[in-house]
């Protein structure tokens, strides 16, 4: 009884925290603050995973989302100098359209959820060692196993890594002191509007 009451209180507290942090993610005008709010929202989601008896998944959430993805987003904010600029407040029309569409989606999906019957298992007891169960499911090549998605994920990660390196690593614009690439002979001659604009103004000045 008291455990159930504590579970309820924890659920509503963490859910309220997650919703507030998610609202901060989409409404803050400084993107770096939005990234910090995103980190908080993902951490509270890890707490919700733990409440759903998915302890290993909570660990993965903290490891990958909070420790990896948010860090990469912060790097991208630094690299694109998005943090120093205040994001333009969206126009009222844009806000209104966004609010109408998202609230419409919310109403329709919650209505569908509340109106439909679910096959809820009565005796809900999660397995004790979920990492072991996940490992078995991932490596199982029989029916119900996930070995093919497991290998495909490695290919996806390989493609993402190669693509990210190829796209992000090009000749830096003029004036940036550091370079980590540009070893291809043709890379330096790539048409670059920013550097060309610099050349034009320099020619006009002299």
């Amino acid at each position, binding site marked *: 009884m008291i455990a159930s009451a504590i579970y309820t209180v924890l659920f509503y507290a963490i859910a309220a925290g997650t919703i507030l942090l*998610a609202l901060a*993610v989409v409404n803050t005008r400084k993107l770096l603050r939005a*990234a910090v709010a995103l980190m908080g929202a*993902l951490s509270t989601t890890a707490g919700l995973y733990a409440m759903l008896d998915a302890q290993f998944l909570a660990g993965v959430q903290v490891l*990958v989302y909070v420790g990896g993805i948010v860090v990469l987003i912060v790097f991208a904010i630094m690299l694109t100098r998005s943090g120093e600029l205040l994001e333009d407040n969206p126009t009222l029309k844009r806000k209104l359209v966004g609010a109408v569409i998202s609230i419409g989606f919310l109403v329709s999906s919650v209505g569908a959820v509340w109106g439909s019957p679910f096959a809820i*298992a009565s005796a809900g007891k999660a397995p004790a060692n979920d990492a072991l169960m996940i490992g078995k499911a991932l490596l199982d090549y029989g029916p119900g196993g996930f070995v093919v998605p497991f290998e495909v994920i490695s290919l*996806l990660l390989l493609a993402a890594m190669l693509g990210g390196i190829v796209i992000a690593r090009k000749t830096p614009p003029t004036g940036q002191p550091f370079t980590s690439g540009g070893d291809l002979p043709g890379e330096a001659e790539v048409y670059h509007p920013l550097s060309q604009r610099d050349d034009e103004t320099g020619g006009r000045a002299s």
Partner: protein
Amino acid sequence: MNPLIAQIAAHSPGLRDWLALTSVIFSIGLYGLLTRRNAVGILMAVELMLNSAAMNFVIFNRFCLPARMDGSVMAIFVIAVAAAEVVVGMAIFVALYRYRGTVDVNQMNTMQDPVISIEGPGDFNREVMKNINKQYKSRHDH
């Protein structure tokens, strides 16, 4: 037993409460997707949506099939896909910033067709070709 505790315990969250929570988070992400102008901000909103969708798998696993771990496995796959998406997406934004000097999505309109009225497919192609020639000339004149 204290009646207040009994009252609170009677409202223990069920499947529908959990799903309502993920719907709310998804809607907030949708709102951010539609109102943000910075591409990095849009991607953060997409992360919120992906996160709530992954949580749905775990919720259904917990309530409908608690003896197996299929939902958790799917959620781990979703997290891996989100990581791959962020890697490539952020690389594109970094390259885009270097090339255009901004990541404002409202200014990403070079592929937009300026022709307003289109009669048919032939006219469309002719107009597009004319436009491309004009842009090419203006770029290489000086």
